[in-house]
């Protein structure tokens, strides 16, 4: 066992990368859930975004266009969910699960000609002075732009929910859709936008996996990241800032346990592999003394009968 071989600087740097896809997907789902919609289809939207982004990035040679396409792809798929739950008034839990199944199938069909291809590289930030700083350089100033985009997105959502009128309306719709409707807010329109935002974010998160983190296309490559993103929203008790903490915690333990293994720590591998999940549960139990709760209308169907 040789713990000294673990380099904390590099560990922190890779933590940020490992956390990014689940962070972006989770912040989108958080907005959807704050509007009262529980979309369990994150995994399906992520994988669809992963392949849409991959195809466009490969065909155009531009990762930026790829990420844009991924957001559009994820949002388009989420519109199917919106159609089902907002207009056909179908059950949200079942619709979301069906969306995941559908998305996994669609993405696999779309990606059939794209196995074994390398996507164009996503440029990394390289600021002459800052990136060369001894500790802060590698940790803070040498990532690809999506890492910063993810953090900025969290800040933007936090500010939007807390300080803007749009955020207020969103929360009102999520807490009590009948009252919001009575006040004249367009419940369906708000939720439609929230679902679309969630889909776009999930798509971006997926594309981050296929374009940066792995980067390649293979069927089912998101491998459960969408479920982790869903769990993060609950973990964060529907608060934007805590999504960031949760994603870093989860990403951090995931990276750390691999590092501990490589360093030869005498803890059985299975327990190390379980640790991200067990620690998430543990932290959740500790935090459950906090009485913040889910949006009151979460998962309920809205129908304006008036």
């Amino acid at each position, binding site marked *: 066992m040789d713990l000294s*071989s673990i380099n904390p600087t590099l560990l922190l740097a890779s933590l940020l990368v490992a956390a990014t896809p689940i962070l972006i997907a989770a912040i989108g789902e958080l907005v959807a859930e704050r509007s009262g919609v529980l979309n369990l289809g994150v995994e399906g939207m992520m994988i669809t975004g992963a392949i849409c982004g991959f195809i466009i990035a490969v065909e155009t040679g531009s990762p930026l266009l790829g990420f844009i396409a991924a957001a559009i792809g994820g949002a388009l798929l989420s519109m199917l969910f919106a159609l089902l739950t907002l207009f056909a008034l179908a059950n949200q839990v079942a619709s979301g699960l069906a969306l995941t199944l559908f998305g996994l199938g669609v993405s696999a069909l779309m990606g059939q000609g794209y*196995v*074994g*291809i390398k996507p164009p590289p996503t440029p990394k930030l390289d600021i002459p002075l800052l990136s060369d700083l001894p500790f802060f350089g590698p940790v803070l100033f040498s990532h690809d732009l999506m890492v910063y985009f993810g953090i900025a997105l969290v800040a933007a959502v936090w500010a939007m929910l807390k300080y803007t009128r749009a955020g207020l309306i969103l929360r009102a719709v999520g807490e009590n859709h009948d009252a919001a409707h009575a006040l004249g807010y367009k419940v369906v329109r708000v939720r439609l936008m929230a679902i679309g935002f969630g889909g776009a974010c999930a798509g971006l998160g997926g594309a981050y996996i296929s374009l940066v983190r792995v980067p390649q296309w293979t069927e089912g490559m998101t491998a459960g*990241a969408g479920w982790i993103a869903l769990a993060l929203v609950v973990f964060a008790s529907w608060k934007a800032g805590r999504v960031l903490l949760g994603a870093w915690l989860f990403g951090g333990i995931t990276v750390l346990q691999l*590092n501990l*293994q*490589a360093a030869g720590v005498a803890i059985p591998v299975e327990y190390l592999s379980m640790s991200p999940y067990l620690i998430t549960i543990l932290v959740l139990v500790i935090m459950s003394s906090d009485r913040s709760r889910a949006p009151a209308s979460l998962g309920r169907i809205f129908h304006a009968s008036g």
Partner: protein
Amino acid sequence: MKLTSFLTGAAMALGLATSALAQDITKVGFIYVGPIGDGGWTYEHDKGRLAVEEAFGDKVETVYQESVPEGADASRAITQMALQGADLIFTTSFGYMDATVGVASKFPDVKFEHATGYKTAPNVSVYSARFYEGRAVQGHIAGKMTETNIIGYIASFPIPEVIRGINSAYIHAKRVNPDVQFKVIWAYTWFNPAKEADAATALIEQGADVILQHTDSTAPQAAAEKAENVITFGQASDMSEYAPHPRVSSIIDNWAPYYIARTQAVMDGSWESVNTWDGIREGMVGIGEITDAVPADVKAEALAMKDAMAAGEYHPFTGPLKKQDGSDWLAEGEVADDGTLAGMNFYVEGLEGDIPQ
């Protein structure tokens, strides 16, 4: 199984019917554990299937089913192919072993071929590849080329095949570089690109400048490419899109010659149950092109070793070798027997850490 007689009767009735219709066409079925698009294990088996079609043209019809879970679903998928008149069925994952043997007992006229297992029957053959021969070549190149003397190894599950690979690579790395150290991460997955990327990154961060992998995605290759001064080897598939650097060579599973030969045997009526464990010599294990990133002398040594194995002159597990606990395993010049290799569950001397139990 009382179902046996019932199904056999039905199958025979059907067998008569279809053979009357399509006398000359041999139907070959394939059961895959992953999607064809996995770029690794299943992808290579499917290349073997396409090679069979190529070789026999109109005289053969191939069918396949992908992403078949092990267990009850596998039994059904195999039975279904047999019912639909397949003459020869390849089941391409270890987990299909009991299902293959079970279904085979109900269809005595259909031939079955199970990959990487050990249970045979009059109409069930098993076949596997001596991937450890390829690992020996990898180990040699890795030992020569590492500058940090740390080699990272992404392992999947602690099963004999994987342990064999680690031992073989380690023995040959150590032989050319006594200071070499192996760091092993057990990913507990065959295929999870994100996790493999993380594992590779963790190993690189701890100083590894060579990454060996026994998982199927190219994610570790990409991680190595980002890190720049790290080399890798393709696994299962050539992964040549990462050549010439970081991927400096690869182990390729080449099932095509075997699949063609076995289909031919069914056509000729000469098929017999066999236990095949082929390696470099028979062409089942291929060494992908060694790129110019490897110094010429190292490349020549590696190729010489490959040729020696192909000629049957060299065995990667040749004594003197000791087990990890220091006890004797193979005496000077002694060669490991296939039985021990097949069930290998120990590290050789010098490897650190424990095999998960």
